[in-house]
């Protein structure tokens, strides 16, 4: 296959995959929502969950985006240095977003800042966002796709705490955000927390944490313990579906961490809404693909 044909093939596949992730939620999210739905007993919570599940069925049946806010596309790329399309990747992801915008269709969600106009194509200066991890001596490429909707982007927040505030301060920072902004961000939420050394390191980790499968834990024992404490604590607040009250508030809490400066604790929180449209696809050098997030998805 020529380079041009390869680029076209991968562009088409990514456009289809992006479109698909807007229509059907990933397996782990569906499973978690089913679990939480069964544990709610108030009539209002039941009506809301019934609506959510009917919506997901209708979206697949009518082949339409399940939520109208298909977000700004974000791609978390882990690319091998030997992947044949490494040079073309960022450009082709942009093209794939334009293609999906018209074929799916996706809502137009890229407004150029300062000039303040909507490009109408979902791409603009720096959008879609692509984060790179380069993997030496590998010829494959792994991509997480994420539709970052406006509603669940709003609660995002980062700060730097003094060490005296400790992990107690981290707890307060996260929980305060849940009752001020979280309840409007379409609970049950997936909560990502970054604990690092400054605002930008913590912020990036807090979003990256949302790419982890639901039910996974931080490999550090204390961090995993804190994930569980925060999960139980936010659930006990009882936000329920749509923040209107219920027995549960979150699908999970994921913490990602790095070492920190002795004088600072960078902390950030990011949330994903119940309609957590995350996809995960891995390509080999011949562009054979494996999708781990959605069973039964064929491109």
């Amino acid at each position: 296959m020529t380079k041009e044909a390869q680029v076209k093939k991968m562009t088409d596949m990514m456009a289809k995959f992006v479109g698909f992730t807007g229509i059907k939620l990933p397996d782990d999210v569906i499973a978690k929502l089913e679990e939480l739905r069964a544990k709610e007993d108030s009539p209002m919570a039941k009506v809301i969950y019934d609506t959510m599940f009917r919506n997901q069925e209708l979206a697949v049946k009518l082949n339409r985006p399940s939520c109208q806010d298909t977000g700004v596309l974000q791609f978390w790329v882990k690319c091998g240095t030997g992947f044949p399309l490494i040079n073309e990747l960022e450009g082709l992801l942009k093209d794939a977003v334009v293609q999906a915008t018209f074929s799916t269709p996706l809502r137009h969600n890229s407004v150029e800042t300062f000039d303040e106009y909507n490009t109408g194509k979902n791409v603009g200066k720096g959008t879609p966002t692509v984060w790179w991890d380069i993997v030496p001596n590998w010829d494959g490429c792994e991509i997480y796709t994420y539709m970052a909707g406006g509603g669940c982007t709003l609660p995002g927040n980062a700060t730097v705490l003094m060490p005296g505030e400790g992990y107690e301060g981290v707890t307060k920072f996260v929980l305060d955000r849940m009752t001020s902004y979280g309840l409007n961000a379409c609970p049950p939420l997936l909560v990502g927390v970054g604990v690092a050394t400054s605002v930008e390191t913590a912020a990036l980790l807090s979003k990256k944490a949302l790419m982890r499968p639901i039910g996974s834990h931080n490999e550090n024992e204390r961090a995993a313990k804190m994930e569980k404490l925060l999960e139980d604590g936010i659930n006990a607040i009882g936000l329920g579906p749509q923040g209107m009250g219920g027995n549960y508030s979150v699908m999970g809490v994921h913490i990602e961490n790095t070492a920190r400066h002795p004088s600072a604790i960078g902390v950030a929180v990011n949330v994903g809404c119940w309609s957590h449209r995350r996809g995960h696809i891995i390509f080999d050098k011949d562009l054979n693909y494996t999708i781990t997030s959605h069973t039964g998805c064929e491109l």
Partner: protein
Amino acid sequence: MVEMRDGKKVLVTPVSAEDLKDIHIGDIIYLDGSLTTCRDVAHRRVVEEGREIPVDVRNNAILHAGPIIRPLEDDKFEMVSVGPTTSMRMEKFEYEFVKTTGVRVIVGKGGMKENTANACKDFGCIHCVIPAGNAVVAAVCVEEIVRAEWRDLGMPETLWNCRVKEFGPLIVSIDAEGRNYFEEKKVEYNKKKDEQIELISKQVGFIK
């Protein structure tokens, strides 16, 4: 007008202040009739710029939303996906907006505050939540897009005037007495939050 249909309470536009008297926070209702999407910039135009809203929403409903629309032939449009956006963004404009336009039903996502609650009480209006993220459920309740105004604002912000049938479920979050479901819930949430912060803090003293 209020109709009971298969156990469902359905508000039919035009809606009068009288129609809203027996509707209270936490009730689940549905809507028939005229519903117009209206969000950030449209509110700003009406309230700050003093422009006349080109779709008459008096005694009708608005929806805080930015839909996905497919253009059809002859200046017609299809509603593909439509769901509510965060209502709180419109809070600073909503008192004046309700006063100026005479809208009776505001549908959106999440709570609003005293500006909107005062408008509901003073002018006879309610705010409802349609469970968000359910854009296909909502889209199939749209029978027709009747008009599209202020198209210069782009797809999400255009005023899409729709004729809807049993649009919902709508959960009443502010009623015409000015009671506010979310603000009442928030008191409860914040109390529990403070308890949890104390409880967790005892177990995360990792810096020693």
